[in-house]
């Protein structure tokens, strides 16, 4: 009992320099975690809380080697961020084998708490199941019933494409094709042409970050949107909208796990965060990073130990009720079920970061797969 090694170590393993380093991971995520630790008082059960971070370069092997050493040598108690599903899947498995809790935020694949779920793996913030529920539904209902996907060619992209396809088909739409694009491509033109000639009404972007931004830009460059096809970004952050410009992104619908302009509590948190991050507004992933850090520390406090089993159990006992999630709960399969928001790009707001307005709140139980449908074997008994 008590705190192992007299210190609680939180490891932020993220993409510190690559395509996901803005918006999802990087300094912004580290700032959120550190801010939470500070707000918590820097200590838990009288022991120091330490935050360390490392760059996984979007490489699962780099990530798992780092995680392995963190666990074996540095006795890290919890690993978070794990932006990039391939990374998260690898590290979650490894950490669980070694009895260490992971709390993935940036990573999206619903498999993390689905068929790849583990005893100590938690997925916090959003997933590929939750994203299309809002966005794809809205698009299909507006008449966009045939889709062509441009998909990031790894765990995340494929999961997102699958989950979106399921939504589209359920609503009677069809999927006419897809192109797999390597992560961090800069030229989407040939895929876009392929999509264009498929005749689909909607080009679904099953990618994220810089990839999404580039794809949308080039679609405009080649006159694809003018040609009558609609783009649907399945994972868009406000930072992406900002770099696209609201004129280019105009009309875009997308789904987020939180938006800073939801209520006063959120607005206040955003102001505070911006001081930590050199003036960049938080994305919903950063908010999740903060929220989960507090949740984890509270669980240690409540359990009176940093023992993984005790903390994991405690995490599922609490309700997550803060600026980020209202009445959210961490399920047996490790998924944080909470409300999601469909937002739409808006132009000309006063605050340069006010790039979207919320058009619909998607209740947690609608957004996420049920425990039963999620496919986590461990959670079925």
């Amino acid at each position, binding site marked *: 009992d008590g705190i192992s090694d007299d210190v609680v170590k939180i490891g932020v393993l993220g993409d510190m320099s690559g395509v996901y380093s803005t918006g999802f991971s990087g300094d912004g995520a580290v700032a959120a975690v550190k801010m939470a630790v500070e707000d918590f008082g820097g200590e838990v059960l009288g022991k120091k809380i330490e935050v360390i971070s490392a760059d996984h370069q979007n490489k699962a092997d780099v990530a798992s080697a780092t995680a392995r050493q963190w666990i074996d040598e540095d006795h890290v108690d919890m690993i978070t961020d794990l932006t990039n599903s391939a990374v998260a899947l690898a590290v979650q498995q490894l950490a669980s084998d070694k009895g260490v809790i992971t709390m993935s935020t940036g990573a999206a694949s619903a498999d993390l708490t689905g068929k790849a779920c583990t005893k100590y793996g938690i997925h916090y913030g959003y997933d590929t199941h939750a994203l299309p529920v809002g966005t794809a539904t809205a698009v299909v209902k507006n008449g966009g019933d045939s889709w062509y996907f441009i998909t990031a060619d*790894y*765990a995340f992209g494929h999961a997102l494409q699958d989950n979106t396809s399921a939504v589209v088909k359920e609503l009677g739409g069809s999927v006419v094709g897809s192109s797999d694009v390597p992560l961090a491509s800069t030229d989407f033109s040939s895929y876009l042409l392929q999509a264009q000639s498929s005749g689909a009404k909607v080009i679904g972007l099953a990618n994220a970050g810089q990839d999404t931004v580039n794809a949308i830009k080039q679609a405009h460059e080649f006159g694809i949107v003018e040609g009558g096809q609609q783009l649907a970004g399945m994972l868009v952050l406000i930072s992406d909208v900002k770099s696209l410009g609201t004129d280019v992104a105009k009309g875009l619908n997308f789904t987020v796990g939180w938006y800073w302009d939801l209520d006063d509590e959120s607005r206040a948190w955003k102001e505070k965060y911006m001081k930590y991050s050199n003036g960049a507004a938080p994305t919903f992933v950063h908010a999740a990073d903060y929220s989960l850090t507090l949740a984890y520390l509270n669980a240690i406090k409540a359990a009176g130990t940093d023992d993984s089993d005790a903390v994991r159990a405690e995490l599922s006992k609490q309700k997550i009720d803060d600026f980020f999630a209202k009445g959210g709960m961490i399920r047996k399969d490790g998924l944080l079920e909470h409300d999601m928001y469909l937002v739409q790009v808006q132009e000309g707001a006063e605050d340069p970061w006010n790039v979207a307005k919320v058009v619909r709140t998607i209740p947690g139980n609608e957004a996420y797969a049920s425990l039963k449908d999620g496919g986590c074997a461990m959670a079925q008994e």
Partner: protein
Amino acid sequence: MSEQTAGIGNASEFEDSGPAESAPGNRIVQGVLWGLLILSILVAPAFLYPVFVMQLLCFALFACAFNLLIGFTGLLSFGHAAFFGGAAYFAGHAIKVWGLPPLFGIITGALGAAVLGYLVGALAIRRQGIYFAMITLALAQIVYFFALQLPFTGGENGLQGIPRGTLFGLVSLNDPIVMYYFVAAIFMIGFLIIYRTIHSPFGQVLQAIRENEARALSLGYNVDRFKLIAFVLSASLAGLAGATKAVVFQFASLTDAHWQTSGEVILMTLLGGMGTIFGPIIGAVTIVTLQHELASIGSWVQVVIGGIFIVSVLLFRRGIIGELARVLKVSGV
């Protein structure tokens, strides 16, 4: 545009290569190095993170295998990552999907690398010098794309969660110390194979080919076949290293097959000393340790590694062991 550049690191450049290998001074230095090697392998896990030492051993074996080609045959392969990384996938698949025990999985990996080595080698030895280097580089890139696109490799995700399993159905390799000595044994076997190859009748012919290919041909040696065998041997041993690494990290990834890894193994060998026995080990240990220690400075590691590359090429073409041998006036180390 002459293609007849003699192999790298040989002939004209280094005129003075000390006395015969069996001179008494050499014997002593050789003995000391062997002793140091064995001793440090035995005691390292007591002082260092075993997984890290295992990584060192894997890369050291990789570099030694590579050196067999560049240092003792005069062929610069710029695509050795294909064998290292390829074998990792073969081994991973054999263990994870076919359920082979780890040892047989690793052997499967090495055999797979041998087949790849045969295919790449047979094509590449049609050209010489810089062309050979570029062709191996490009062929390795094909292997890389296969690793990216074939269904069994897991694409960008890599092949994850390869079980370490048990050795001969007896001891679990999940115990880090057992795993360590298992890896150490593989390293020693690989290293001894290389050592013996260099000092075999076959090695003698390789050296002759490196020094004067046309003459070797006129003496009736089938030069291409010798080169190909050397290539396949080197590829298999690189594969042995890669497969072992896959079991250590329970992971086969694209990084291992990427050209940058091919570049790194060249650097390790160059830095330690091409054509020396122990040099590649020193080079691998230096580079891997650097990467490890400097991981916190992020991409500056690349700058440092690049800088070392430049300095070694400009000033230490003999490498650490090569320079040492020159100063001590010994050979065969």
